[in-house]
């Protein structure tokens, strides 16, 4: 259609106009139906929690699924997002577990083998679910992120002690139609909340509490026996 309009044009002026129209049509054609793509690579350091450490020697194992965790999601007719959360999760858990336990040993594999002999328990976190939402109308002013970790706690010989789902929620004021920084900020807030929950409530989880109680009783009996 553009070409035929050009053919009927008179002189160079019309041809210049046609090339402008063609360029405009090309831009419209190339962008029509497309969604923008955003990458949120969470890169930040997390503080060590100010909590009293438990008198335990813990082995911490970060599974490959956690180390390389990514999440991709398309919001229909709006945008496509890709999150990289593995590195940040390790950055979150390292200071949390270091503050939570008296001694921490990073484990390369499970079962822990010879290293297990020097441990009281093993903790292996997983990132199970990650969800987010961005404003699609004027009334909503925040991006929101919700995530769920699951902490697997074992004895050194691999007997399960507890399996604890820990959630984190974060929101951040949205800016623009591709709120990459807001999503980053909300994700960091959600991770901080999950870290806060673990560092404050780990010892009071019913299964962990019972195990700690049993361990304490056993120690008392051993000490009393001689």
């Amino acid at each position, binding site marked *: 259609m553009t070409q035929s309009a050009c053919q009927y044009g008179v002189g160079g002026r019309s041809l210049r*106009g046609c090339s402008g129209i063609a360029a405009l049509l090309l831009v419209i054609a190339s962008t029509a139906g497309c969604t923008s793509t955003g990458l949120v690579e969470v890169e930040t350091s*997390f*503080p*060590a*929690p*100010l*909590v*009293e450490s438990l008198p335990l020697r813990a082995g911490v194992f970060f599974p490959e699924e956690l180390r390389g965790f990514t999440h991709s999601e398309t919001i229909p007719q709006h945008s496509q997002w890709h999150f990289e959360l593995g590195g940040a999760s390790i950055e979150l858990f390292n200071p949390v577990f270091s503050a939570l336990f008296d001694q921490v040993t990073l484990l390369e594999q499970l079962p822990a083998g010879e290293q297990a002999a020097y441990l009281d328990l093993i903790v292996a976190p997983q990132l199970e679910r990650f969800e987010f939402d961005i404003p699609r109308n004027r009334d909503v*002013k*925040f991006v929101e992120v919700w995530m769920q970790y699951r902490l697997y706690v074992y004895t050194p010989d691999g007997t399960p002690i507890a399996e604890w789902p820990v959630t984190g*929620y974060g*929101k951040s*004021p949205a800016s623009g139609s591709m709120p990459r920084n807001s999503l980053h900020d909300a994700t960091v*807030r959600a991770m*901080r*909340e999950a*870290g*806060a*929950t673990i*560092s*404050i409530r780990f010892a009071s989880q019913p299964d962990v509490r019972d195990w700690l109680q049993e361990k304490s009783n056993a120690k008392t009996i051993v000490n009393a026996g001689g």
Partner: protein
Amino acid sequence: MQRPSSMQVADRQLQDSGLRHARMLLALAFIVAIALMTSGCVTADIEQVRHSATGVERGERIVILARQHHNSHEAEDDFMQCVGNALERGGRGLEIASRKDFLNGLYPWFEPATAPLTAEELPALLARPGVAEQLTLTGVRYVVWMDGMTDRVDGGGSLACAISPAGGGCFGLGWWETDSKYEAAIWDLKTFDQAGTISTDYTGRSVVPAVVIPIPFIARTQANACRGMADQLHEFLVVGDAPIG
């Protein structure tokens, strides 16, 4: 019928052109007058409630934190930065502690889900191992909890712009109303109580009239709220022997 001569046509065109210019100027004057009458005005409502005497001694600092547990609103980072900067300025400037350092140093006790909601919870928090020592290290005596936000509450009018190879321009009148509503609760970490609250509410109408070129008249409610809040906070904290009530 007699056809008009070329001179008459030229005269008519000149008259039409002059008339168009006059009409455009009249419209511009009318729109600008409406804009001036309705914009630039920011109305303020400030309230201060004092529960106990305050005062800032040498070395004592203030930290300004946002209340984050509401789903609908949260004080903007730049607003809190603005209030902090305003409090720091001047000969009698106050020492403002870094929000990030405070939150990281006291992690996880001031996160949205764990932060104390009332000053009555402070003694229990400070009794936790290491918390009181860390607070002493920060040098913070007052925590200012900032709540609220700036919101666009109303708007209307019509502003249309067009562009063509011959040029472009806009015509019409657009307006919107913003409300900057904030409340600061001041906690004294020395006495473990809420020393008082300051609330500011600034509303204003912004107008953009346009005859070819849009001329914005922006009501800067957030900037005004920042100044108002900072003045009130300074007075509240420094003039600590003000009558209570």
